[in-house]
């Protein structure tokens, strides 16, 4: 994430409190919709991917969206102070673990090393 990216701008604490609350609420809603679409797709196509199927069916879109948004914020803060993308990557990988592919489960839900350093 570069300093001028839309995400960096979106996470800046600007605007008054109700405006920010509304903004984050709508952002979370969009993420929840995307998570729900992925979950449904996993249910339908999951027969070839037993692991992703089993894991994605019990995904709660609202709660998962909350973790994704929190990971994005918290991970960005850590990446900002360390000037290193690794913390944001680690945080998002954890938040998106339910959608890891069974072919390479360790790339997302466990990831055994800091290969991107």
């Amino acid at each position, binding site marked *: 994430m570069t300093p001028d990216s839309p995400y960096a701008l979106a996470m800046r604490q600007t605007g008054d409190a109700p405006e920010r609350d509304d903004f984050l609420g709508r952002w979370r809603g969009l993420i929840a919709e995307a998570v729900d679409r992925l979950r449904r797709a996993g249910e339908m196509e999951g027969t070839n991917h037993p692991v992703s199927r089993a894991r994605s069916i019990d995904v709660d879109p609202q709660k998962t969206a*909350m973790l994704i948004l929190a990971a994005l914020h918290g991970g960005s803060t850590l990446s900002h102070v360390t000037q290193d993308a690794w913390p944001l990557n680690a*945080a998002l990988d954890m938040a998106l673990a339910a959608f890891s592919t069974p072919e390479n489960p360790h790339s997302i839900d466990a990831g*055994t090393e800091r290969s991107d350093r």
Partner: protein
Amino acid sequence: MTTADTHTGKRLTARGAKTRARIVSAAADLMYIQGVGATTLDDVLAASGASKSQLYHHFDGKDALVRAVVDHVGQRIIERERDALGHVATFRGLRRWRDAMVQNNALQHGAYGCALGSLASEVSDHDALARQALAQLFSEWQGLFAGVLKRLQDGGTLPADVAIDKLATGLVAALQGGYVLAQTERDVSPMATSLDMALAHIESLSER
């Protein structure tokens, strides 16, 4: 008795150290409640009751004061977290830590967030020293979680191939992000949810 001032290298008398501590403590409170950017040196003078010459005796300016606040707040939080996490070796213990964090934040309806996280989100790109100090503090915090996960692994609760560093970083991020969302909503539940989801993920790794 004299102690060395870590930033200016000046030797402090007991009285000087007391004045310095009073200034830092007042500045930390102000920056926690109204933010770093909105806190002026005049605010700090008024809140601490120190004189301008006393303040400038200890600090070159606002950047130096912000660095002292980072040290002060960081030390307090890392000590608290070391007490809370230093011996945790079970999921139950980790849940108890979560309950205490959520409970404490609920007292203020999540209004002010994490003192360290607020500093981190506000510290500017030009202040490399403050940023490095914050990076070091978050790395210590991450290390405490890594210690918990390592003990879970040693005890056979978590599989040996789990990437502890990565999960520990994810936990710190979920906690910090949860604080920010709770702060915006003036409600602790986003923080509770994001911590619960992060902990549930870690617990799910033990069931594979």
